[in-house]
């Protein structure tokens, strides 16, 4: 009888099962023996970024290859989806099986994992110099410890098409600085037959970008934003929801594309890159891509101001970053890789290979051979800049207030001056649902106020 078609006995089944279990059990044990910080090990890395800084994967792959050449350590990267990169990490960390190196967004997106003990403080692991210069921003610190190093920078502002500005009779080299100038520009663009602003808000990310670009104008410090999110300050105070009143103003005047609610972020940006709309809210990470389509016609400016907070009119810049999970199996090698990412050669390579702008104070911006992008880098990173206050936003506020308010305003079913009530209700709801986090936020707020 063919051995493969012979019936298996109960005894054989038990033997094979026991063997299988033994092999399955030995696997992690053998894997655990592979690390050790002495090089030659294997690390896993979950990351995100190529969706935003298109092309940065080339740099990541090259950096991993160079790191292996120098240390013998293999990094196994896994590029994650935007919505999954943090939740999957949190779940894996809760199960005790996180990767060795983890991409983390700034602020609350990693701070909740810090509070759960899933991320290790980097002090003592990564050199103090790299920690200081790596562009992690103050939002990566909690109770004196730093949990992130920077990756690349993401500035926030408005892209504009200089050619369409000129055709509408506007000065293409002097984009609007105040809200009135902005409305005037929109009006002239509309009169010239051009769509002034384009975007897609179905997935909510544009709502977040708008929210940060405009709420920040009402604030004196990041701590003030945090006080709003935890209910110490009141959203119903007009200056704290004025940004949504202004959004309604843009909607009522017909300055925004009428299909904004049915488009996702990048679907909404596409008409700008195709030269069919004059302006769009976008990040600096997307500028090389827009530049490849619009060339010299592309310009970038800070959101025009209506607010009178100390943070008004100043560029907003965030950084993406990496951390080391507490239960990663080789902190030492993981820290070496983070330091390697910030070595001068790698910083230079990020620009030459991917046209991404590295989050590192030691990066020599004279290497940026594109005058437009160099100007943006110098203004948004080297110059005075604000943190990205959405990094302080509880996710519940994102899903139930920011997302809802911006979409409803743009659907014409909520007035800007009604949003203060909505935001205040959601803040109270968050406090009820997360009594333990209120205390953590308060502690964090003290760090930010220092």
């Amino acid at each position, binding site marked *: 009888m063919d051995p493969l078609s012979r019936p298996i006995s109960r005894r054989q089944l038990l033997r094979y099962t026991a063997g299988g279990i033994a092999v399955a059990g030995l696997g992690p044990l053998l894997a655990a023996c592979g690390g050790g910080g002495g090089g030659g090990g294997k690390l896993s890395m979950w990351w995100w970024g190529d969706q935003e800084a298109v092309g940065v994967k080339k740099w990541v792959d090259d950096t991993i290859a160079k790191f292996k050449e120098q240390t013998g350590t293999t990094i196994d990267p896994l590029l994650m989806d935007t919505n999954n990169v943090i939740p999957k990490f949190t779940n894996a960390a809760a199960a005790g099986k996180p990767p060795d190196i983890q991409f983390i967004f700034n602020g609350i997106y990693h701070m909740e994992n810090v509070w759960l003990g899933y991320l290790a403080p980097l002090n003592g692991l990564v050199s103090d110099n790299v920690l200081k210069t790596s562009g992690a921003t103050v939002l990566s610190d909690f109770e004196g410890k730093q949990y992130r190093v920077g990756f690349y920078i993401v500035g926030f502002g408005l892209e504009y098409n200089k050619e369409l500005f000129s055709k509408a009779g506007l000065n293409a080299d002097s984009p609007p600085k105040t809200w009135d100038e902005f409305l005037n520009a929109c009006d002239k663009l509309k009169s010239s037959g051009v769509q002034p602003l384009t975007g897609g808000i179905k997935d909510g990310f544009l709502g977040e970008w708008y929210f940060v670009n405009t709420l920040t104008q009402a604030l004196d410090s990041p701590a003030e934003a945090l006080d709003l999110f935890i209910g110490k300050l009141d959203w119903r105070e007009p200056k704290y929801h004025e940004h949504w009143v202004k959004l309604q103003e843009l909607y009522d005047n017909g300055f925004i594309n009428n299909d904004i609610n*049915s488009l996702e972020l990048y679907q909404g940006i596409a008409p700008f890159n195709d030269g069919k709309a004059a302006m769009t809210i976008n990040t600096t990470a997307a500028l090389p891509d827009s530049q490849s389509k619009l060339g010299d016609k592309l310009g970038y400016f800070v959101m025009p101001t209506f607010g009178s907070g100390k943070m008004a009119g100043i560029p907003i810049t965030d950084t993406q970053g990496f951390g080391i999970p507490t239960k990663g199996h080789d902190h030492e090698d993981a820290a070496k890789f983070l330091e390697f990412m910030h070595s001068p050669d790698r910083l230079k390579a990020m620009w030459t290979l991917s046209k991404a702008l590295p989050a590192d104070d030691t990066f020599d911006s004279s290497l940026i051979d594109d005058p437009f992008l160099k100007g943006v880098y110098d203004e948004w990173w080297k110059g005075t800049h604000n943190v990205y206050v959405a990094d302080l936003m509880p996710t519940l506020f994102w899903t139930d207030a920011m997302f809802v308010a911006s979409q409803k305003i743009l659907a014409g079913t909520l007035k800007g001056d009604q949003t203060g009530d909505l935001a205040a209700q959601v803040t109270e709801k968050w406090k009820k649902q997360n009594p333990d986090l209120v205390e953590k936020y308060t502690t964090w707020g003290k760090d930010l106020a220092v």
Partner: protein
Amino acid sequence: MLKTRSWAPYAYVAPAALLIGFIFAYPIARVIDFSMRLIRGNSGPFVGLNNYRLIFEDPTFVAAAKHSALLLVAVPVLLAISVLVAVLLFERVRGWRIYRSVLFFPYILAVPIIGIVASYLFTLNGVVNAILRGIGLGGPDWLGNEKLALVTLMIVIVWREVGFGIVLFLARLLSLPEEQIEAARIDGAGWWARLRHIILPELRGTIEFYCVVAAITMLAWVFGYVYTLTGGGPGNATVVLEFYIYNQGLRNSLPGMASAVAVLLMGATMIFIAVLFWVRSRAREEEVA
């Protein structure tokens, strides 16, 4: 007669019972346990029924429950289309086998693919509206209008799920004895009479089964559509219970509250299953009588 010890049958059943218990009962017990804790990471302090109280106080949950209930409207629509098309195919119209395959095709496509494609088709300036405008009917904002978004979602769900119903009913019809229908035809029964007096009574059991399955689908299997098609928006116009669970459990880091909703959803689903069993047992009793 072979004598066995009284515990022996239990011992034989025990491994399978333990396995089933581990696979099904343990996760359900964990979800119920989670629903009464403020979960942070793997566990958290016991909070009794507080999570249940919080979800009933949450306007987003109330909206989600309402939207899930509204989606049940799609069940009779699915049933009517499925039965009607299955009966038409059963008439062996020319090329019926091809139609059957074509109609079943959407059902074998992955939900995310359908969601993504539909989200392009139904944009304000998408293909659907281009066609409507082409024939002078204008074109609404299918996904961007709060009043229409749930209807659009329902249309896409029905479009995909109807294939399963058609094949199910057609399979049942093809198993009917041809003589009965042929005899009715010879006796002069028209299409409507055959449908009403022969086909529908024969389909009764399948209809009951399909209604319950479709209702469970609407309550607990539409996440993929919502996630890819609308993301719960505009505003919270298409947030359903599953999406609320996802938001609370994964995005808002509140697995305890997500579990509480899951327990309630499981309860609602079990009611449907209980109704199915009750209807089936009553039907059997009637048949016996």
